[in-house]
């Protein structure tokens, strides 16, 4: 929650930076902590979005469309309270679904063999690389991440791959070094080089009375919250979509169903309640495929999956039978975490505004040295710290060229798992490629992947034609 309030510090960079610190914790504690950062960030991000029009995460940008005008009209308190309430509604509905759906999905997934996993992961990778932004760049980054993930000793043959004779690379590239470099160090370099220091805040006094919404406000936000929750859950479960899309979708739906669409953008309360419910529901629902199938839907989930594996927990259908305590512990922590957020967020709104005032020139040296300490402490490896610096520079270059970093991490974690399942599937099938599409489940996943590829190629082609037409029209 603290994190979301700091603008520009997404859940990704924070989880990446805190990752090394969770090493010495119990697996369940570590996971609960990282997961809490993820969904807490969604709450916090809306605060700055409303007060300053500075969204903490991309998903909160939509909240600012109507939240910021509300704040300018002196209704900041109402906006913040409605945000908190509808976020809670969205999250609660999604957790309820997680509790009912995950065990059923897990039982269904017990029938999954390597061909099915290969198909599901292909689908997740295809969806993730095509839905976000530029298709070619997304695919390229997934492929690059896969290659990076394959560095080290090959499980099948014991031979080294892509280690270039460096003994430090035999064990593979460290997930923590990659993630902290790519998100943490890159973020700092970017902020310093482009002078985006923490914004200065005008100290608006938020009294308790200004928080109280009228009955009218509550009635106007009830239905949008419910609709937003459903949209959010859908987006959360589908790989590659996630919270950002959920809140944008919800906003456009609210505008379409509203009796008076002209109020949107000028402080319509439905424009705050819907998207906030949607992105919080999406964040919680994203845990459903990750925990039940072991197939993450986005890069943050992929990272949490990586954390589980490092901690010796195998996510997926067997997790419910093998370590039910961990699964239900995580679910229980979601309830507690969301309740705490609900209770804390309201009185602490004033405090959040003050946190924004920590000067960046004091913050970032601490962050850099914590990155160094954290990465070093995992393997007592100075090499990993050097690696972080190098990856940070590469990450900066990627960001300059507008290459997305999240698909890279996604490929890094999923790529090697896919190779494993591909090999196993072909071994079982005796080299017959049809084993990959032989069952209804895997065939369905492959059809879905294929249709995404076709759809995005068509839109890519149209886009190219359109830009060519524009160019031709110019003299």
């Amino acid at each position, binding site marked *: 929650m603290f994190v979301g309030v700091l603008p520009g510090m997404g859940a990704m960079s924070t989880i990446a930076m805190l990752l090394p610190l969770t090493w*010495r914790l119990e697996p369940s504690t570590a996971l609960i902590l990282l997961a809490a950062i993820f969904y807490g960030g969604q709450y916090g991000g809306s605060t700055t979005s409303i007060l300053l029009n500075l969204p903490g995460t991309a998903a909160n940008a939509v909240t600012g469309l109507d939240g910021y005008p509300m704040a300018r009209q002196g209704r900041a308190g109402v906006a913040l309270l409605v945000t908190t309430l509808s976020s809670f509604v969205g999250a609660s509905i999604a957790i309820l679904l997680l509790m009912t759906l995950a065990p059923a999905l897990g039982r269904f997934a017990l029938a999954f063999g390597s061909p099915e996993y290969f198909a599901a992961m292909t689908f997740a990778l295809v969806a993730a690389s095509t839905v976000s932004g*530029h298709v*070619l*760049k997304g*695919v*390229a980054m*997934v*492929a*690059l991440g*896969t*290659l990076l993930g*394959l560095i080290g000793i090959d499980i*099948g*043959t014991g*031979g080294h*791959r*892509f280690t270039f004779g460096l003994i430090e690379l035999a064990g593979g590239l460290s997930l923590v070094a990659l993630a902290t470099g790519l998100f943490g*160090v890159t973020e700092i*370099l970017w902020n*310093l*080089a*482009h002078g985006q220091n923490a914004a200065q805040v005008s100290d608006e006094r938020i009294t308790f009375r200004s928080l109280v919404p009228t009955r009218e406000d509550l009635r106007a936000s009830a239905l949008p919250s419910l609709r937003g929750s459903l949209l959010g859950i859908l987006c959360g479960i589908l790989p590659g979509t996630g919270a950002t899309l959920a809140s944008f979708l919800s906003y456009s739906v609210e505008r379409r169903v509203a009796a008076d669409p002209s109020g949107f953008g000028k402080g319509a309360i439905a424009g705050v309640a819907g998207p906030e419910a949607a992105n919080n529901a999406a964040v919680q629902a994203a845990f459903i495929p990750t925990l039940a199938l072991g197939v993450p839907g986005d890069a943050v989930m992929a990272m949490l999956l990586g954390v589980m594996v490092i901690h010796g927990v195998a996510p997926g259908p067997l997790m419910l039978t093998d370590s039910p305590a961990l699964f239900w512990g995580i679910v229980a922590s979601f309830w507690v975490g969301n309740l705490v957020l609900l209770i804390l967020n309201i009185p602490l709104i004033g405090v959040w505004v003050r946190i924004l005032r920590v000067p960046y*020139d*004091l913050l*970032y*040296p*601490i962050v*850099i*040295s*914590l*990155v*160094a*300490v954290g990465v*070093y*402490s995992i393997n*007592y490896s*100075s*090499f990993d*710290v050097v690696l*972080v*610096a190098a990856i*940070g*520079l590469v990450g*900066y270059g990627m960001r*300059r*060229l*507008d*290459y997305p970093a999240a698909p890279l991490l996604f*490929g890094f974690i999923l*790529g090697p798992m896919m*190779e494993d399942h*591909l*090999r196993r599937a*072909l*071994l079982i099938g*005796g080299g017959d*490629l049809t084993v990959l599409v032989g069952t209804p489940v895997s065939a369905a996943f492959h059809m879905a992947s294929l249709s995404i590829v076709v759809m995005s190629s068509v839109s890519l082609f149209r*886009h*190219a034609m359109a*830009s060519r037409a524009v160019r031709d029209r110019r003299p």
Partner: protein
Amino acid sequence: VNRHSDFFPPERIGGVLTAAIGFVALCVSSSYGAGDPARIGPGVFPALAAVALLVTGLGLSLSGTARTQRVAGMPRLLPVAVPVVSSLLVFAALIRSAGFVPAMSAAMLLASLANGRLCLRHLVLAVAAPAAGAAVFVYGLGLGVPVFPW
């Protein structure tokens, strides 16, 4: 200000780089052995990924410059990157020989330079934070490094 020439816009540079990485990776992975269909070798999957990189890289270097995010003005990267990177390198070099507190202090001081000026409060922080860090990591979490060189 756009300092890039028309023929080498950022989009093309990225595409060429991507294709180059894909090409190198393809060459390297071709030496790992293809195996046979039932037991595919260690080279097959990397080669697939490398081909994907090569193809998308070529596509990107040929496609237009339409969607590149232009950053206004050339950012001052070097005065920022040198302190940040050297801060991490110095930490890596010092942590084993000099111990936790000197390594973290040095890293923080170097990192502070990236901001352009060094004030008293940075110095204070570079002494206070490593002390707190040593308490948490070395004494609290049992990190196995010396606190001081002696």
